[in-house]
């Protein structure tokens, strides 16, 4: 079965080709069948491989790509516990979201376009996690960036959406430069880009630690771009311009986790790069808190979830930075479940509200959308970190390792708990404002309120179930931490350094209780403000206090980037155009033309028309020839 692993990315690719080429000629039913079916088949294949896997790590070579001089790269896939886990998440959650989209995008004209792009995205994402060398990973990396652009700007007739798509792609690109430089440094150091060769190289040789640190930081810059960390996170909230299933799949469950995957895959390098790991952890925790504060005051349901995603990604990087690779991956898994669930619920709400996304216009939807309400509540509980839901276990695992981290561990832990409290607060703010209280929308919207069709609610229920129970894969106990046992053999050379599962001792218990208590306090506060006292978010900006306005405007980061980076670049390009292009290059080109014309005008004086002159010239020439020949 493992040898058939190459089929897994090929199936969505075929789906893309069939739907892309068939286009409007296929019926919606056929498109749904092909689109969802390809991902489902890929999921079943991944499942099969999962059952066959017993901790080994195999490389399935499909074809050799190129071999030039010193570098040879193959199309080969690495099947080990880490990649299989990600494959399952991508295809599993992906399939549920595809199923959901058949309902959500049902009335859209670009139905076929949507599913072809989604399948293409799944293909590239699988390529990313299955590649056995950095180049194949980079191909997938770029590919998901492309699909993200295509899907964010899906409703391309709106210029703002197009701008959001461009922003996503360009900010990604900045990160990609870091990734590329990291790859180049890896190649220069290890003479290869293949994982096995590189990691063996790290294990066998004692290179200068500064090389590992540099590689680590460069790779992390790439991860910042893809996984929306400071300072390259600004694209993610804008990316909410795309359809909600896109936000769920790409910007919650899969693409944004590719940075996590990349760093976990390169764990061997980061183990040997303390400075880089510290940077990862620091940026992670700062992002976690920073984004959470912004999420407190947003009024668009999807924007709240977007900032929440940025914040949760920060937690994952925090975990990776302190060496808790399993914890980070665990949080990826649980986050995929509950964040996808939350986004799909949001989509369900938006669908019911006929396109309204402002929570100030919602309220009291509990009665009209029972299933959505229940699943949303489960997702909110999961993300707030309350047991027995999955978010509690994964977040706690990370925070436990953070506390034990030497040096800045305690500080990070405190910040992490603060972020956790903020998370719980704003998520429950969102919950209360959307589903409780009086309905604040228009009469028209009230008329159309209805629960979503089965195609949309069934994935919600499945995801809710997963969000509820997935935590039990990681019970803090050396024997029962199933996830750790599964992943551990795959860490290869990093095995001896990676943090084991947390121990269920006294210290741990204290931390857990503090976390639960703080989350509970935040939820109670949210309840008091938004449910009991029915406080509503301010309508107009002028009513907000100064600090709140700054946070509401996302700390004016976008404006800052605009002034500091974009304007000087625009000025520079204008200068280049005015001077280099117009004066210099055009001058040269036009100058050549006028030079030739000038020479021609000089040369035409030879054509005097006088036969006597021509005869002279002839005899002169003959003379010259004779002279040159004979003398």
């Amino acid at each position: 079965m493992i040898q058939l692993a190459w089929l897994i990315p090929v199936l969505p690719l075929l789906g893309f080709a069939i739907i892309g080429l068939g286009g409007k000629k296929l019926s919606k039913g056929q498109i749904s069948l092909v689109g969802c079916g390809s991902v489902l088949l890929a999921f079943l294949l991944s499942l099969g491989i999962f059952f066959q896997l017993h901790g080994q790590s195999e490389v399935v070579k499909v074809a050799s790509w190129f071999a030039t001089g010193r570098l040879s790269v193959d199309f080969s896939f690495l099947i080990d516990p880490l990649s299989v886990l990600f494959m399952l998440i991508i295809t599993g959650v992906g399939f549920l979201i595809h199923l959901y989209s058949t309902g959500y995008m049902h009335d859209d004209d670009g139905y076929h376009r949507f599913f072809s792009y989604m399948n293409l995205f799944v293909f590239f994402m699988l390529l990313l996690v299955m590649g056995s060398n950095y180049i194949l990973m980079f191909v997938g990396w770029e590919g998901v960036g492309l699909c993200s652009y295509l899907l964010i700007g899906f409703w391309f007739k709106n210029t703002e959406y197009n701008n959001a798509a461009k922003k996503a792609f360009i900010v990604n690109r900045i990160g990609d430069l870091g990734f590329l430089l990291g790859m180049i440094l890896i190649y220069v150091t290890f003479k290869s880009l293949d994982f096995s060769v590189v990691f063996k190289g790290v294990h066998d040789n004692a290179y200068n630690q500064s090389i590992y640190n540099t590689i680590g930081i460069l790779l992390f810059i790439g991860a910042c771009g893809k996984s929306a960390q400071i300072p390259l996170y600004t694209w993610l909230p804008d990316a909410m311009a795309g359809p909600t299933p896109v936000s769920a799949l790409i910007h919650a469950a899969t693409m944004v986790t590719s940075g996590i995957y990349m760093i976990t895959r390169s764990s061997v390098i980061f183990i040997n790069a303390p400075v880089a790991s510290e940077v990862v952890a620091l940026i992670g925790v700062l992002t976690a808190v920073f984004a959470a504060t912004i999420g407190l005051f947003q009024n668009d349901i999807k924007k709240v979830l977007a900032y929440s995603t940025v914040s949760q990604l920060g937690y994952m990087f925090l975990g990776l930075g302190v060496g808790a690779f399993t914890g980070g991956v665990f949080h990826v898994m649980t986050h995929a479940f509950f964040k996808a669930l939350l986004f799909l619920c949001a989509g369900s709400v938006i669908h019911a509200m006929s396109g309204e996304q402002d929570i100030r216009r919602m309220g009291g939807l509990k009665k009209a959308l029972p299933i959505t309400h229940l699943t949303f509540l489960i997702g909110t509980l999961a993300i707030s970190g309350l047991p027995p839901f999955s978010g509690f276990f994964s977040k706690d695992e990370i925070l436990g390792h953070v506390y034990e981290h030497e040096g800045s561990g305690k500080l990070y832990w405190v910040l992490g708990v603060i972020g956790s409290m903020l998370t719980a607060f704003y998520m429950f703010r969102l919950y209360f404002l959307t589903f409780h209280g009086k309905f604040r929308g228009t009469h028209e919207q009230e008329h159309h309120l209805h629960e979503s069709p089965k195609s949309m609610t069934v994935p919600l229920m499945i995801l809710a179930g997963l969000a509820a129970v997935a935590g039990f894969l990681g019970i803090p106990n050396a024997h029962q931490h199933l996830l750790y046992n599964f992943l551990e053999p795959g860490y290869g050379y990093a095995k001896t350094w990676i943090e084991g599962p947390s121990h269920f001792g006294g210290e741990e218990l204290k931390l857990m209780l503090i976390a639960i208590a703080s989350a509970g306090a935040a939820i109670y506060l949210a309840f008091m403000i938004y449910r009991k006292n029915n406080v509503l978010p301010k309508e107009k900006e002028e009513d907000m206090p100064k600090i709140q306005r700054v946070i509401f405007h996302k700390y004016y980061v976008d404006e800052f980037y605009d002034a500091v980076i974009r304007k000087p670049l625009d000025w520079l390009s204008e200068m280049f155009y005015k001077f280099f292009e117009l004066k210099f290059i055009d001058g040269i080109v036009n100058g050549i033309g006028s030079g030739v014309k000038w020479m021609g005008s000089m040369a035409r004086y030879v054509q005097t028309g006088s036969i006597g002159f021509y005869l002279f010239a002839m005899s002169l020439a003959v003379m010259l020839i004779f002279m040159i020949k004979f003398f």
Partner: protein
Amino acid sequence: MNLTITEVLFFVLSAIALISGACVIFSRNPVYSVLYLIVTFFAIAGHYILLNAQFLAVVHIIVYAGAIMVLFLFVIMMLNLNKETEPHKPAWIKIAAVVAGGTLMLTLVGALKGADTIALKQPNDTQIGLVTRLGHVLFTDFIVPFEISSVLFLAAMVGAVMLGKKNIT
């Protein structure tokens, strides 16, 4: 000076040719130029005889002095050219022309003065200029060019007649 008759004849004929050649160039009246040129041709024909190229000498007289010069004379007469209507170049051009022509002359002489060193084929066959021998070569090795030259004359004839016709417009 122990000159043989042949050498004397060579010098005399050369002098006649060169002097009348100069008179061709510097004479004002074009009719005189034609006449001087005929003298030059006769001198050249004398050279041919010296070299025992008998057939060529006769042909030379017939074609050049007999046909071509007569043609020139006809044209000059028809255009009614004489001393008054002769166009003259400005003086400096004449000087430049003399200089150029003279330089070319010197160049040629200097370039070709080494021709002596070419080995001669012995024994010297002096009969090649006779009619029978020349005709033999002409009609065996060069029969094709001979026939083609008739086409050439046809073309020249047609051309001359076409060009010379008066357009009736």
